């Protein structure tokens, strides 16, 4: 099984990197960009028998810091 984990800063947590990208896009003339949020994508190659519950546990314990980040899991 392959799983893809998306990790994003939660809404309400300032994302200064996303803001910097938004400014840069605006300066380049892309004037319709109203917001940018930057996150991470983590691809996992998993052995047979691994479950989505395992991936959830990985997210809770390491891959995301749930104080500031939310995550979603996509199985591929």
């Amino acid at each position, binding site marked *: 099984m392959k799983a893809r984990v998306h990790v994003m*800063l939660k809404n309400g*947590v*300032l994302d*200064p*990197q996303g803001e*910097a990208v938004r400014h840069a896009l605006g300066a380049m003339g892309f004037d319709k960009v109203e917001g940018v949020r930057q996150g991470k994508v983590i691809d996992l190659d998993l052995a047979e028998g691994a479950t989505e519950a395992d991936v959830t546990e990985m997210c809770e*314990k*390491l*891959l995301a*810091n749930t*104080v*500031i980040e939310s995550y979603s899991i996509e199985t591929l």
Partner: protein
Amino acid sequence: MKAAVLVFPGSNCDRDLAVAFEQAGFDVSMVWHKDSVLPEGVDIVGVPGGFSYGDYLRCGAIAAQSPICQALAEHTNRGGYALGVCNGFQVLAETGILPGALLRNAGLKYICKTVDLKVATSDSVFTQGYNAGDVIGIPIAHHDGNYFADDATIAALHDQDRVAFTYGDNPNGSRDDIAGILSDNRRVLGMMPHPERAADEGHGGTDGTAMFRALAGMLAEA
């Protein structure tokens, strides 16, 4: 008194922290991240600054899962003392020993300079050598020092007098100018500024010395 300073791959303030403890009178041992026990009789654990595990994933995240951090959590759960500076504060937040998280600086830049730090409480073994309201000069050197916690956590920190230090001129976007916080039993301090870099005349400032002296005095009595 005995202090242990943790050493992770990428720690770079471990020796400075050890020297600051030694100059205050502690016997200091350096403890490798793969060790799973702290030396016998350790009073305080120092979690040093640096870039543990290259800051991969999130600052402090991988260090927080290392064997020695299990031992650290057991030590603090037993009521043991700990001081986390800079990356050490990030590690303490990632382990959950201290609440909140450290985000990228609001201005996106790595900042290395001496800042004015206000002592917000003198009610802890770390800050009893100062008076609340004192302004001290302590260096910062970080890229991810922007303290964040939800509203309820911030309110609890204020209500319980657990904000140890605030910035005079907020350099990184931290909520309520918070530079350092205490655990609920007041025995764990995490702070982004580096008191161990202001602990010798040669550093250009000695405002951090009072912290290590107060710790030594208190733990010697205990």
